[in-house]
């Protein structure tokens, strides 16, 4: 399979004023294999989102190293990082963050038009195809105000997928959705992962984390444990079992 992302001795410190520094990440080490579906859990303020933004190059690390796809991202210039995010990474946030003056289809094809990996005609077809797979094809020419929260999050996932990224980062992608929509979104992500895309997402929800292969647990800026629960098989009983195992483990960790 091979490693897609590796963080070594990763530290992140924020300067809050003279002689006032806040260490948010503390010697974090992690290895992520290609095709993995990982979730990061931990209490509020444990540094989950900071971890996600630092390993994805969205934020500058204070020390240590992060390699993505064999490339040290701490050394990259802003332009190269943008190109990396455009072509190799995809992001899904808690809020869909779509551009209000673009139609749903336009929001999806936006980054593909920028990346110019294929012709605009092909991009349009690909976007429609993607929307069909995710079940929102009928919304293509709608305004974003005409879609529900769950639908918009699916649009955000389509947008993240349009350039066929190697890895998708999700910062609580189901955090603002009701449980049914959250499960639907997770089904979609699981399907994407099955097709080979690595996914790392931050979540508070055990039900969500239970659908991933491996769970990292963070506390006070460090990964203090991880639980491999293996590939999720789409059976109701199996999910219940995974949730139970995970809950037990999290309780041990003090979650």
């Amino acid at each position, binding site marked *: 399979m091979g490693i897609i992302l590796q963080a070594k001795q990763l530290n992140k410190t924020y300067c809050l004023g003279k002689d006032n520094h806040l260490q948010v990440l503390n010697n974090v080490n992690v290895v992520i294999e290609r095709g993995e579906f990982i979730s990061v859990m931990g209490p509020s303020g444990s540094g989950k989102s900071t971890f996600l933004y630092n390993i994805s190059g969205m*934020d500058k690390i204070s020390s240590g190293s992060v390699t993505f796809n064999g490339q040290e991202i701490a050394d990259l210039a802003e332009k190269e990082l*943008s190109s990396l995010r455009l072509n190799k990474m995809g992001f899904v946030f808690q809020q869909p963050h779509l551009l209000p003056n673009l*139609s749903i289809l336009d929001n999806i094809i936006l*980054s593909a038009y920028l*990346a110019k990996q294929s012709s605009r005609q092909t991009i349009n077809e690909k*976007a429609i195809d993607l929307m069909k797979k995710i079940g929102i094809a009928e919304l293509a020419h709608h305004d974003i105000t005409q879609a529900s929260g769950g639908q918009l999050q699916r649009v955000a996932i389509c947008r993240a997928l349009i350039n066929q990224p190697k890895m998708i980062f999700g910062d609580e992608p189901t955090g603002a959705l009701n449980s049914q929509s959250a499960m639907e979104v997770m089904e979609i992500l699981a399907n994407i992962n099955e097709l080979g895309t690595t996914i790392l997402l931050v979540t508070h929800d055990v039900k969500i984390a239970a659908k991933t292969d491996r769970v990292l647990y963070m506390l006070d800026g460090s990964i203090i444990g991880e639980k491999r629960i293996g590939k999720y098989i789409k059976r109701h009983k199996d999910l219940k079992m995974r949730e139970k195992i995970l809950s037990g483990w999290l309780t041990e960790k003090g979650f």
Partner: protein
Amino acid sequence: MLFNMMKKDVQKNKMLTIILFTFIMLSAFLASSGTNIIVELTNSMNALFTKSNAPHFVQMHAGEVNEVELTNFANNNPFVKEEQIVELLQIDGTNIYFNGSNRLGNNSLMDHYFVVQNRSFDLLLNLESEVIDLSKGEIAVPLYFKQQENLELGDTITISNQGFQLDVTIVDFVRDVQMNPSIVHSKRFVVHHEDLNLLKANLGESEYAIEFLLTDLKDLDAFRNDYQSASLPAKGPAIDYHLFKVLNGITDGIVAVVIFLVSIFIIMIAVLCIRYVLLATMEEDFKEIGVLKALGISLLDIKKMYGMKYIVLSAFASIVGYVASLFFHRLFTKNMMLYIGTAPKSFSLQIVPLISVMIVFLLIMCFCMLTLRKFNHITAVNALRSGTVREAGRRQNILALHNRLPFNIHFHLACKDVLSRFNTYCLLFVVFIICTFLIIVPVNFLHTIQSPNFIQYMGVEKSDIRIDLQQSDHIAQDFNHLMEKIEQDEDVDKFSPSVTSQFKVINNEGNEENFVIETGDFTVFPLEYLHGHAPKGENEIALSYLNSKELEKNVGDELTIIIDNREKTMIVRGVYQDVTNGGRTAKAALPFNNNTALWYEISLNVKHHINISEKVEEYSKTLHAAKVTDLQNYLVQTFGNTIEQLKLFILFTIIITILLTILITTLFLKMLIAKDGTRIAMMRSIGFSSKNMKVQYMTKTLIVLSMGIVGGTVISNTIGQGLVSVLLSFMGASKMKFVIDPVQAYVIVPLLFMIVVSTVAFVSVSSIKKLTIVTMNS
């Protein structure tokens, strides 16, 4: 608490506060300065008119006067309080030397009159507004020449002729209630009566100004009728008190009006800015406003929280603007102080500008309150549930991306953004329109007034050279001599002489009134007629626009004039624009009558290979009494002062406009980027680099600028041209068309804006680099 909130807000938005402060201060400053000029101009003019005891009615006359006859008329007329006959000795410019050198030459359009101080009215004043009193060997020179020739007290003026020379020393400069403004082509030099007699004995021609002071100015019209129907000397124009006021006030009056208009523009911009800032703040704090409402804080208190800062800011800026105007308004009144002088400080001078500043403050307050009314529509539930203001009017179908238009993605997104949320860019668009208008209109007007085509608004046919012969005893001989030379001159392509004479016309009330008609063949040189064409037959006449309006005669109408005591019916064949002679002239193909001639003109064109300046020089030498000018020189001499003022105004406008552009663009981009923070961060997260985003924001700004420039230019060339035309129609040119220098108007001005705005935008968008999802979340 409110004070602390304000303090924090100011600290947080320093730049914004400074920009808004500057605008309000500037509008208060200009409003105060504008009203100050108007009040001071009115006061100073009243002071000048009182001090110099300005005449109410003046009849110029080139020829002999019968003093007894005039005195009898004055004594028997019930309206007359005092009467005087002023002898004006006209000396040619070629005979006058300033500090030893003759700079006036033959090309000066001015008539140089040498006079002595008057006894009781129409007094000539010095720079201290005191009545000039001279000894032998001393002279007081018109202010016009002080400025034109840079003369100082103590300089020498030599008036010489073959075998005669008189040296006089400048001891004063003349503030002349009648002939101050440069648009008046006559200037009075004051000398001692012995010197005048000496001059008279050796050179010059005498003319007379028959002046009357009336018991009551209201009777002016009645008196004018009396004078005109009494067959008294009238070989020359008649002027009155009202015209003196208009002529004296026009230059500074226009400056005041322009300053006032600029002030209104800036108030508009300040108001738009405050509205924009308030709405942006409302959008940003939408949730917080909801919380405040949910907590039970009254709407009024919430409005106070958001509006108080602007009330305090406006009040403070207005005070600073007013105080600044007290110190700097002299900048605008320099010209007025020199030509008209200062009046004693009056109470109105203090109070009127203060009132204007208070109006500025109240206007800003009103608009602030109106904008704050939007807070009424925010409900607690609405704000807390949605968290954001739904932006109305977003049109996602405009320039849809999936339509695969052949645009660069950044340009496409920029265009789409500008078009789909145009309301957001409206402030910038309006400001760019105003700025373009403010520069283009004066630039176009300057180019128009400097262009040879402007001659068509002066009722003058377009020709290479114009020769003017003023009234003198030997004017007819001079004219014949000149005509002989022109007829024999092989360099001359074509020429057309004309004679301007005084006639009488029967006006609408059936009364006779003096009427100046230029007679000649007007088909030789082209003059653009507003309606109709040049008069051809002997019973045809063309009227200037103002004459046509006043006499209510249009093309095809009949007009009765009196020639040699016989009534003659003329048919109006054309109406033309003319700003000369008070806009009241006429042209007819009547035979020349040397006896009634006021002045002669010859228009001539030279052949292609002939150098016009050399020809001007040649004819000037041929006949010293003739004023020979080429077209450009004629315009420069007539409008020299206006052109200089206009150039200064344009420079001032360009500086102000550029400052305005810089301030507004900075303010706008700062606000827009803050407002679009999440959108920028999101786009960066999906792969747009900060450089891509900067390019997009710069492109958006330049798109709005281009739209503003196009809009501003169109408005300048339509409404702007119309406005200037309306102003000029009072002077006699009703259909002025801008002569546009395409390089200036369509290349230099837009380029200037592009450079300024690009630079400002480049600096302003640098904050985009700091906007990432991480910073937005924190």
